[in-house]
């Protein structure tokens, strides 16, 4: 469904993506893992078209992204995605309900307000946030913000849900709640493909149907949890054990 062919991206002297080849299957939970600064977030920004590669091609649903020339075509492309940001990125001038209504109103401006609000409430119910409709983002805890952000990502009924480091900086219990939500949403909406950017290997092994590992701008391993458990690649082993070796400490 999403295919990267020899995608490279450089920021000044820093080569973030270096000939990345990857394939993200449809209707599955795919984890893109790697250490911080390995280009995971840059990869999803390329998928949405928020960034353009220096070289290489990206295909989404068979469509070549470099062929999308106008802003209008890019905006149409982006409508396929729902994105949960690392820090939720809720609009702080709107309450929870209006945050979730926002993408629906944008995509379907002719829809009556009552239907928009009902759809937003349905999305908020899926993440158990339907009791906090009139709260503003500054009145929410980190976990509540994540859940509201997820409801907003779901509101536009996307084909592809992107999670940018959904469990970074939150406590282990909340991590588990978020992981369960990812699985629940994937089960509730089987036509939705989930792409999770993370460095949480435990979660990846537990819930991912495919794991892709990025290291120094390249894909070093792709496969299911079992492939990762059996891998003898030293970088993968190190990531699985969570211990720093002398050679790759810095």
């Amino acid at each position, binding site marked *: 469904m999403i295919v990267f062919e020899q995608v490279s991206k450089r920021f000044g002297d820093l080569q973030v993506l270096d000939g990345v080849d990857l394939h993200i299957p449809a209707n599955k939970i795919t984890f893109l893992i790697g250490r911080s600064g390995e280009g995971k977030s840059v990869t999803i920004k390329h998928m949405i078209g*928020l960034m353009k590669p220096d070289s290489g091609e990206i295909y989404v649903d068979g469509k070549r992204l470099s062929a999308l020339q106008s*802003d209008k075509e890019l905006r149409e492309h982006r409508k396929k*995605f729902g*994105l949960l940001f690392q820090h939720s*990125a809720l*609009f702080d001038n709107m309450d929870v309900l209006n945050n979730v209504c926002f993408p629906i109103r*944008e995509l379907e401006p002719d829809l009556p307000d009552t239907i928009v609000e009902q759809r937003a409430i349905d999305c908020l119910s899926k993440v158990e946030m339907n009791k906090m409709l009139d709260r503003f983002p500054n009145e929410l805890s980190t976990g509540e913000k994540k859940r509201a952000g997820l409801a*907003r990502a779901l509101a536009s009924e996307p084909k592809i849900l992107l999670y940018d480091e959904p469990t970074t900086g939150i406590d282990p219990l909340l991590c588990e709640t978020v992981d369960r939500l990812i699985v629940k949403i994937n089960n509730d909406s089987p036509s939705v493909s989930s792409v999770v950017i993370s460095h949480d290997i435990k979660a990846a092994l537990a819930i991912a149907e495919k794991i892709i590992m990025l290291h120094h701008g390249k894909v070093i391993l792709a496969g299911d949890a079992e492939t990762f458990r059996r891998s003898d690649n030293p970088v993968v082993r190190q990531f699985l054990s969570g211990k720093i070796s002398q050679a790759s400490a810095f």
Partner: protein
Amino acid sequence: MLTRTKALVDRFFVLNVGYVGRLAIYLYTQALEFFYPLRINRIVEQLESVGFKSIGIILLTGVSVGMTFGVQVGAIYSIFGVESLIGSTTGLALAVEIAPLTTAFLVAGYYGSSTTAELAAMKISEQLDAMEAMGVSLLNYFVKPTVIATVLAMPMLYFYFMLMGFLGAYIVGVEMFDISFGNFYVWLKRYVWVEDIVKGAVKSTVFGLVVALVSCSFGLRATGGARGIGLTTSNSVVVNLLAILVADVFITYFQMKRAGL
């Protein structure tokens, strides 16, 4: 419906008017792209921020500037016994220069800076990325409503400032220099023409465009954390003030040239 109408208009021009027709289509398409889709609710929101919320500050500043200018001019005129000219001098200065410039500075200071700070904070907290990821055009959502609202509001704010300035000058004239309302009004009317007010309104409109474009462009390009927001906002205010002054020089030059001076 709109696409169909546009296609019909395009076809009419291409078939009937040739090269000029194609040029007309280009200009028409550009205008259509700017004005469609127009987010009326966003324009109203921005009009409220730039217009209605500034009524108090414009009243206070307008009256103060009018009074101060009236006192300064009146002190000199009283030496020559022509205090009755306070209305005309203050009125003309307010109409062509002081009101458009001060209104623009005020709007750049409170509305321009808050627009930049808001956009910068949204950019840094990834709220703008979230909007773009939803397929929302930042140009349509932020820039166009801000430009349209500011360009519409500025001439009105200018006019309001000018009236408040007249009021300030009148209070000074009556209270300090003993001139009557009739005397003040006659001289004001004799020297301040509609053409002067149009000149001031044109300046205000251009200044509004400058403030909107500078404020939005700084906010949308903000980087860094809290320090980045502070720096971007102060840079935006400085560039706004300088751009207004430079624009003022050019507009004044062209207006003077047009008047044959």
